[in-house]
């Protein structure tokens, strides 16, 4: 998919990635070329150039996490045991086995149940012993990506999207500071993916091995609600059918409960709260943040391409308008208001004298 922020014409990088993936002539198939990731395939292996600003020590830890036995069957392990190499131009590269992705033309066949199971296993697996990683576990980068989406919208040509951008900004302004990457997130010992969407699932071995999670660039300790919050946001925007959302959430809850029953779950209570009868008080703030993130990227892309919003982008902007309106009403009259109170303390209903 064309990305307006892609550096484009990155032939030297493509060749270097093909060499890294195993073709000495530097010939490979470019699977993705975005500002934050370039992926080239050779045979059954892919090489990835990570984001130009990826920090090497944290990335090393993240790749070793993917290689750790605790996450076998959950995170796709790297092809080369977890080593990274410096590519021409300075970006870090890593190699991975090729998996079979979800068919983008058949979103209805998306493996929502498998996704819920994988995220629950990620959240409840014991953390690797500190000595077995090259450094401390970094924080999950979800909020950083949300802030980056807002920055991109602010840089993008407005096109005809000025009013939508205003709505997105108002919804953003009402989020808790940690969701805007302005403060550290809540203290957590839960490992999160940090950027879950359907493009992060592959079957391995090809073509019909078990589903596993890929793309560890945003993995780290954080609020596990963030990993459920993107499907939650799509559901809340009216884009994801209730049956698929419930399949995902139900699989997550059953897997968390199963891990607890087996005594395998760590002491962290948040996955269990998400698996409880009302996860929305926990999902609310991250789901609002990811709604704003999706809307901001949609507005940025539409503005840059001089087009109008597509239906999904429109739905996210409409959700932002409701979020912005809600952060102005007395929160005592609204269910699920716990997280909102943190960002907009209000006096509640009080009369005029």
């Amino acid at each position: 998919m064309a990305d307006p922020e892609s550096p484009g014409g990155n032939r030297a990088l493509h060749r270097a990635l093909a060499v890294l993936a195993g073709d000495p002539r530097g010939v490979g198939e470019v699977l993705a070329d975005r500002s934050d990731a370039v992926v080239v395939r050779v045979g059954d292996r892919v090489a990835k150039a990570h984001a130009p600003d990826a920090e090497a020590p944290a990335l090393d830890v993240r790749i070793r996490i993917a290689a750790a036995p605790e996450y076998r069957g959950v995170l796709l392990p790297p092809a080369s045991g977890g080593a990274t190499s410096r590519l021409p131009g300075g970006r870090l590269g890593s190699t991975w086995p090729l998996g079979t992705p979800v068919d983008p033309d058949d979103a209805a066949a998306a493996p929502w149940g498998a996704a819920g199971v994988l995220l629950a296993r990620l959240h409840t697996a014991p953390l690797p012993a500190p000595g077995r990683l090259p450094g401390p576990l970094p924080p999950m980068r979800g909020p950083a990506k949300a802030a980056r989406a807002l920055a991109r919208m602010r840089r993008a040509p407005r096109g005809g999207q000025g009013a939508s951008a205003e709505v997105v900004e108002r919804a953003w302004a009402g989020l808790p500071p940690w969701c805007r990457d302005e403060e550290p997130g809540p203290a957590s010992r839960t490992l999160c993916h940090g950027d879950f969407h359907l493009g992060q699932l592959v079957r391995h071995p090809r073509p019909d091995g078990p589903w596993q999670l890929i793309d560890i660039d945003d993995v780290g300790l954080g609020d596990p609600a963030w990993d459920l919050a993107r499907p939650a946001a799509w559901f809340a925007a009216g884009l994801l059918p209730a049956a698929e959302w419930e399949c995902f959430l139900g699989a997550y809850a059953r897997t968390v409960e199963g891990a607890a029953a087996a005594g395998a779950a760590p002491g962290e209570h948040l996955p269990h709260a998400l698996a409880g009868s009302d996860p929305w008080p926990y999902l609310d703030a991250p789901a609002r943040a990811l709604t704003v993130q999706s809307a901001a990227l949609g507005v940025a892309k539409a503005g840059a391409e001089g087009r109008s919003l597509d239906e999904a982008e429109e739905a996210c902007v409409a959700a932002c308008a409701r979020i912005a309106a809600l952060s102005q009403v007395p929160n005592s009259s609204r269910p699920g208001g716990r997280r909102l109170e943190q960002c907009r303390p209000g006096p509640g209903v009080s009369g005029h004298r």
Partner: protein
Amino acid sequence: MMQCPKCGAPMHTYNRSGVQIEQCGSCRGIFLDYGELEALTRLEAQWGQSAPPPPPGPQGYPAGPAWGAPQHGSYGHGHHGGHHGHHGRRGFGRMLFSS
């Protein structure tokens, strides 16, 4: 648009359970028209007497957040009138696969 009689900032109208209330965007004070306090009190009393809250979703999960699309039972009348989840599937497909 009404101005707040206390601090002079513009007031915004909200519909709470069918009762129009004005809230100041600055000091967040609330203005109630004649009869509106009684209407709210009546609604509150009905809430107190009413049976347990509505049953949660099909698998025991609540329908969604307060800011969810209107199909989720939150207030207001959105423009997504149809059965959600089935419109715009192509456009949505792209969003499903990207950050």
